[in-house]
């Protein structure tokens, strides 16, 4: 399968597709010699390919989205804070009972 882009210079409103089989000899050395070529064409397709993405114009690249940590610390800090408050409360109650 061979694929080619059609040049802009081609008048695409008036085209003929041609597949050429060309056997040639520059020089023969004997009358019995020959040049021979054959092949099979299964299908020819015309199609419209999507345009390629625009190339980068250079300069710095700045991400649109903000930085997002893979393991955020907020839940851990909140858990530790709640645990400390709980332990402090329990300790105070225990201290009062002993008094």
């Amino acid at each position, binding site marked *: *399968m*061979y*694929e*080619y*882009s*059609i*040049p802009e*210079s*081609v*008048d*695409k*409103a*008036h*085209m*003929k*597709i*041609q*597949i*050429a*089989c*060309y*056997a*040639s*000899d*520059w*020089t*023969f*050395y*004997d*009358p*019995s*010699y*020959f*040049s*021979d*070529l*054959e*092949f*099979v*064409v*299964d*299908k*020819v*397709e*015309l*199609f*419209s*390919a999507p345009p390629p993405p625009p190339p980068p114009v250079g300069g710095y690249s700045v991400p649109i989205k903000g930085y997002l940590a893979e393991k955020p610390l907020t839940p851990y800090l909140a858990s530790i804070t709640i645990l400390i408050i709980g332990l402090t409360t329990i300790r105070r109650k225990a201290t009062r009972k002993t008094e």
Partner: protein
Amino acid sequence: MIILNVQYVSAAWVLVPNGSFESGTVGLIPENWIMVAWNYSETGVGNPTYIHEMKQTDQKYFDGSRSLWLHSRIVDTDGLRNSRGSHTQAETKDWINAPWATHVRVYIRDIKSTHSIYWGWTNSVYLRINNVGVAKTYYGGVWWDMIFRSWGDSQF
């Protein structure tokens, strides 16, 4: 997408049996393709035998339609060693109007290049798009690209 399949021939034509296109009669050309053939001689001297053949064959890899078999041969019956070419071309019968087309894809198989044992031959497969908007000369008016070239295999 336009698919220029080689369509099944009309009922008036003799169909080639499955898998035996080699024995088909020369000239059985599907109706949406035509054969263009000419001979080339750089010197205009010499009278070799030129053979141009275009037959239909069953598709091997695609269902529902036919394929084209093309063949060109030069036999140097006069032994004059002149530069000559045998050009056989399959061409769409009608002009195609596809302004949206950006690419062309060709499915070709079974390329065979038999030749004399010495140097001096170049067999080629060309894809061409004939452009009616440009004056047509031997090379002009046509966008073309080479698909296959036989030299380099055993030229020397």
